[in-house]
């Protein structure tokens, strides 16, 4: 009984999950990435990656596609979040719900539905379809954090800006946009991170015509057999570093959000 009564003990199941499903795999990736097929420390896996132009090109292409998706999501998501946060909507909660609703459905199902949609309208699958699918899947992740920061902006700040002589547009560019940047940053992280590593969406929406970095990793483990595991681990590590860098970029701004609140 004492074991349960002491609330500190409640943490152990989570610690166990973290150790087995997060820490241990990470350690294994690290070990595999730096070992050759015969064992022993080597940098060969990384050298192999940088020597294959095809692999490096895929890597750059993936980052470019992810960046483009992020930019499109900002362009579509910011206005949506802005209008939702404006007082003029009587039921912003309903609007927010409608934007969040697609997230209730598994993204694989949504992607499959998108494929059917393209077939129905006789549209070619490929790069365009890929961008469309990724934006469709990840747009809510951009809207929500922006909506959150916009909603928290004190109305009196907008009034103060107008009072000091700024018209609506100047108030928007000089007060609203700077104050909503933390939300935009978290949106970037939330969209860029998953899109840079996705493989299912690209496989379905381009019928394997376009290979993204995520697919490359998946193939190394799935199709390449045990021989490719070390190479795959090295690729995973490279991607981890990229994602780590973007989330570092985001975490700084999360502190800003907390400080404001």
């Amino acid at each position, binding site marked *: 009984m004492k074991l349960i009564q002491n609330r500190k003990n409640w943490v152990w199941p989570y610690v166990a999950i973290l150790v087995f499903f997060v820490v241990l795999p990470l350690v294994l990736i690290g070990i595999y990435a730096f070992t050759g097929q015969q064992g022993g420390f080597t940098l060969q896996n990384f050298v192999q990656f940088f020597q294959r132009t095809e692999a490096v090109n895929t890597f750059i292409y993936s980052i470019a596609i992810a960046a483009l998706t992020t930019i499109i999501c900002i362009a579509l998501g910011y206005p949506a979040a802005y209008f939702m946060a404006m007082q003029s909507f009587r039921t912003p909660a309903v609007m927010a719900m409608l934007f969040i609703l697609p997230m209730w459905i598994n993204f694989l199902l949504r992607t499959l539905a998108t494929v059917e949609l393209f077939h129905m309208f006789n549209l070619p699958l490929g790069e365009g379809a890929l961008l469309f699918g990724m934006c469709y899947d990840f747009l809510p992740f951009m809207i929500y954090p922006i909506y959150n920061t916009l909603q928290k902006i004190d109305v009196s700040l907008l009034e103060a800006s107008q009072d*000091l002589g700024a018209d609506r547009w100047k108030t928007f560019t000089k007060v609203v946009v700077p104050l909503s940047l933390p939300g935009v940053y978290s949106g970037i992280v939330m969209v860029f991170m998953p899109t840079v590593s996705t493989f299912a969406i690209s496989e379905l929406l381009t019928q394997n015509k376009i290979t993204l970095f995520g697919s490359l990793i998946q193939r190394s483990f799935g199709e390449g057999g045990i021989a490719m595991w070390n190479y795959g681990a090295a690729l995973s590590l490279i991607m981890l570093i990229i994602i780590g860098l973007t989330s570092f970029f985001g975490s700084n701004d999360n502190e800003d959000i907390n400080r404001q609140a």
Partner: protein
Amino acid sequence: MKNDYIIEVNHVSKQFEDGKFALNDVSLQVRKGEFVTILGPSGCGKTTLLRCIAGFQVATTGDILLNGEDVTDTPPNERPVNTVFQKYALFPHLNVYENVAFGLKLKKMEPYEIEKRVKRALKMVSMSDYEYRDVDSLSGGQQQRVAIARAIINEPEVLLLDEPLSALDRKMRSDMQLELREMHDKLGITFIYVTHDQEEALTLSDRIVVMREGKILQIGKPTDIYNEPQSSFVADFIGESNILDAVMVKDGLVHFCDRDFECVDKGFGEDTEVDVVIRPEDWYISEAKTESSKSKDEPWQLYGEVKTCIFKGVHYHMTVLTDNGYELEVQDYHAFEPGSKVALLVKPEDIQVMKKTQLCNTFHGTMCEDNQVEFLDEVWDVSERTAERFDPGEEVDIEVDFNHINLQDYEEDGTLSGEVLFILYKGDHYHLQIRTDDGDDIYVDTNDIWDKGDRVGIKIAPSWIRLYKVEKNETDTK
């Protein structure tokens, strides 16, 4: 011909979507360079009035003139007024310098000119060394100073201040009050200041505008508002006071506390019911002599016993219960211990006589069958004797005296339910204003103690409802 008013508010009303009036036919003129304070309890419409002048809210009817120009529908950024907001509203993403320079940068002013002016404005509010500080790192008082600097740097013709000192502690507040007053005199800008603090209003203003429930009750100099309040609400809201029911016997003679008093007020007619206000510090108080040693030409007017005595720093505040049952608030530099017998005197010029706004509750309704009458959307029983004079369906005027309305603890026990909106102590009873759920007002005199916001049931005994025939010719002569 041009008058010298910088702001003219003409018959402005503001109705919100739910149909409630935040402002109800408000008119106000402000002269150039004046320091005007709009004073009232929360929800009286004072902030709405300020926001209409600033342009954040548009009046439903009426118009607002600035320098003789109609600005009723002009957006705030095109008005030559600036606002100091209640919670400062400093931009958190900008530092002190950038906050103050915000308005000038919008005007596309030369950078060196901006710097010169920002430095001058910051010096004016004694914040010179804080230019590059984050606004979040400043104390409340410092943020307030930055907010003032940000507003005055644009050299507005009118500075609007929305309870700017309400978030500061007492000591800080009185310091800032002096500084604001100094700043006003130095800048020569017209100040319109909104507050619920009557002391602040009396200290700062050239003129005070007292508001209540969207209406202006009185406009005047601080001394006039204090010494000659025109209604019992103003008297009660501005400082402590004794407000008593009285009868004006004739010019210069008023009857209250069961005796006649000489006064200086005239023109109320003979035997008219009025209210009198006596400030606690206007009573002269002395130890009462024993019955036997009282001489004939004794000047003392009332006798009583001290109930409580509280030290207030400079003076003592005492509650005296007179021998004929009135409770009076008295202030004096000398303390009279509770239990001691005292005599009271008030000079004729210290008695302020006010017209009563209403002598009894008046309603309009329709006769029903079975000795009943309908008014305030409810059906009430009336006595048979009264009812037989009217036909069912006939329109009637109804009168009920303040003291004949019965308040019930439980809403369900009353014919009608409502909320206590305002309480006035009248020496020997309370005068309450009850707002019914339909928004009608009923006034009640009672000896029971109620609190503001209490929910009550309202009952009226049938015999106390007086009915009158509607005088038709009034509407015909229109």
